[in-house]
């Protein structure tokens, strides 16, 4: 029986219980990942991180949450009260909903009922996730707009521009997966990776997805919209207490959601690592949950690692990277993959396929060499001081000033 059929047979109480469990797990993971992030980033900077509340500071995030909830809930006079309240709710709801189509386990015995840990299996599951992520952007825009204040408005616009731009690249990177899996249903995509993960088969797609999911979640090094040191705090500047906590929650659940989607689409979802397939039967199939979360937390670690390593990008560089690098590359890659796929399906002779791949490789290398040569030319010109005056204003270089004074 396929996963979709199994889910279709779920009685109401199973569906309800699944929903509550997914919610509980997401909130719990958020609390733990806030703690984990602070500890890991601290270790990367040779600090120890929170270690006071509870063993190893494990309760730190919980205590922070309580503190947040007990704070005064301010609504600015200039704010649009209704929208101001609704915005964080939209954000939070949207990112939880993405989890509805993510398969967390294979077939398991759920209180005497055989099912899979997945709320529902849409035939367009991944599109649903992308759509829900777009709804989440409304939370950001509305929060920025309804605050009735300048910085949140600018931050909200920046955030939404960023999320929308990277959603394009993200959506395009998934197309290759759809082409290979022949489906948009999450469970079928997982099943299609039985032999080889798409992260290996469609490596460029995986890389593009991995980059754009960082942009999509407003995380370092793409956290320009809430750059703490430069802007006041972005769209949530005017928020306090529980409403701020909701944005905080949605940010982390969003990270988990894109990581879960990446796991499902590229790393074989709940399936065990290659060669460890026998573990999938352990605990009556529940061990697949462990595999799933190992992969998700692996992604989370990479998120933290990025934050600990890379400095923040400049906004124009960031947008340029999204529109002029990620999107064209994914478009070209999709064309390539689609052509190959069609060739295989139509049973093209191996020679034709070989010539096609070879010529594409030649073109790719040619473009690369041309770009490299241009780069070298610029560097050479700079070195020979032919164009010592750049076309943007620069501060006076200290040396030349001393020379002027001395001379």
């Amino acid at each position, binding site marked *: 029986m396929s996963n979709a059929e199994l889910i279709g047979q779920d009685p109401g109480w199973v569906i309800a219980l699944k929903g509550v469990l997914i919610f509980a797990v997401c909130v719990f993971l958020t609390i733990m990942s806030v703690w984990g992030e602070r500890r*890991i980033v*601290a*270790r*990367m*900077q*040779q*600090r*120890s991180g929170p270690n006071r509340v509870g063993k190893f500071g494990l309760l730190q995030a919980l205590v922070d949450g309580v503190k947040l909830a007990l704070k005064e809930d301010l609504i600015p006079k200039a704010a649009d009260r209704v929208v101001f309240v609704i915005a964080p709710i939209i954000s939070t709801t949207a990112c939880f909903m993405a989890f509805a189509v993510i398969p967390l386990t294979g077939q398991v015995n759920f209180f005497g009922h055989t099912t899979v840990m997945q709320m529902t299996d849409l035939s367009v599951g991944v599109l649903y996730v992308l759509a829900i992520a777009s709804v989440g952007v409304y939370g950001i825009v509305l929060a920025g707009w309804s605050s009735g204040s300048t910085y949140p408005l600018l931050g909200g616009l920046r955030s939404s521009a960023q999320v929308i731009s990277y959603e394009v690249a993200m959506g395009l990177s998934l197309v290759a997966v759809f082409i290979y899996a022949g489906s948009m249903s999450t469970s079928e995509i997982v099943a299609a990776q039985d032999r080889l993960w798409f992260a290996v088969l469609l490596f460029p797609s995986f890389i593009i997805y991995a980059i754009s999911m960082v942009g999509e979640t407003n995380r370092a090094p793409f956290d320009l919209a809430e750059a703490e040191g430069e802007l006041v705090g972005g769209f949530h500047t005017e928020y306090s207490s529980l409403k701020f906590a909701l944005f905080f929650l949605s940010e982390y659940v969003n990270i988990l959601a894109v990581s879960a989607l990446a796991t499902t689409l590229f790393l074989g979802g709940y399936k065990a690592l290659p060669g460890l397939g026998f573990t999938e039967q352990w605990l009556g199939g529940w061990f697949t949950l462990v595999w799933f979360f190992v992969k998700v937390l692996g992604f989370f670690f990479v998120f933290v*690692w990025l934050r*600990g*390593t*890379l400095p923040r990008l400049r906004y124009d560089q960031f947008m340029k990277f999204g529109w002029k690098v990620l999107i064209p590359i994914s478009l070209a890659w999709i064309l390539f993959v689609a052509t190959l796929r069609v060739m295989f399906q139509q049973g093209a002779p191996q020679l034709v396929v070989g010539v096609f791949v070879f010529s594409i490789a030649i073109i790719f290398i040619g473009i690369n060499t041309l770009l490299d040569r241009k*780069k070298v030319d*610029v*560097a050479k010109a*700079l*070195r020979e001081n032919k164009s010592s005056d750049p076309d943007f204003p620069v501060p006076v270089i*200290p*040396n030349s000033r*001393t020379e002027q*004074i*001395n001379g």
Partner: protein
Amino acid sequence: MAEDLVPRSDEFGLAHADQSKAPITNHESASFGKQLLGFWVTFKTMFKKVNTVQYPEVKEPTAPRFHGRHQLNRHPDGLEKCIGCELCAWACPADAIYVEGADNKEGERFSPGERYGKVYQINYLRCIFCGLCIEACPTRALTMTNEYELADSTREKLIFEKDDLLGPLRAGMVPPPHPMYPNTDDSNYYRGEVTGSHPSQGVAKND
């Protein structure tokens, strides 16, 4: 003039005169592979010993000349060194010190010489621990200790009175007021010729 700006050492690997004079040569950004090395740095650091000192439980000693709380010192016989001259208060850039001097009277002597500090207050909400008061003090009455735990909950508690600032009575010292060492004047004190108390000055502390 440029020579004056040359740093005395490049101990910290910071500015180096030659470096600042050399033309900038590297116009190419680091290669992609080199940039990836940054990830190795942060990963490696995770397994290093953390630098954090678990402060309230573990206290590392300060540098020997750390500027901490002030102390008003005493002569070896227990008389105060402060003469109430107010030079410290005048030197203070933060206006944190308040001094009122008074005359030493016969039978009520606090310091050798004519005057002593009757009121001495340091406001630690204002003090910036620059140490200019210590440089200004002509009798070495005012010095700084290494004590840095000065936080408190009210403003009043952070204005330290003379009693809070006076150094403790050591063995052989007699609590003032008491007369000077027999047959000496204040210059003997400043030359360091008084090395302890005399029975005629009072009962000395003995531990």
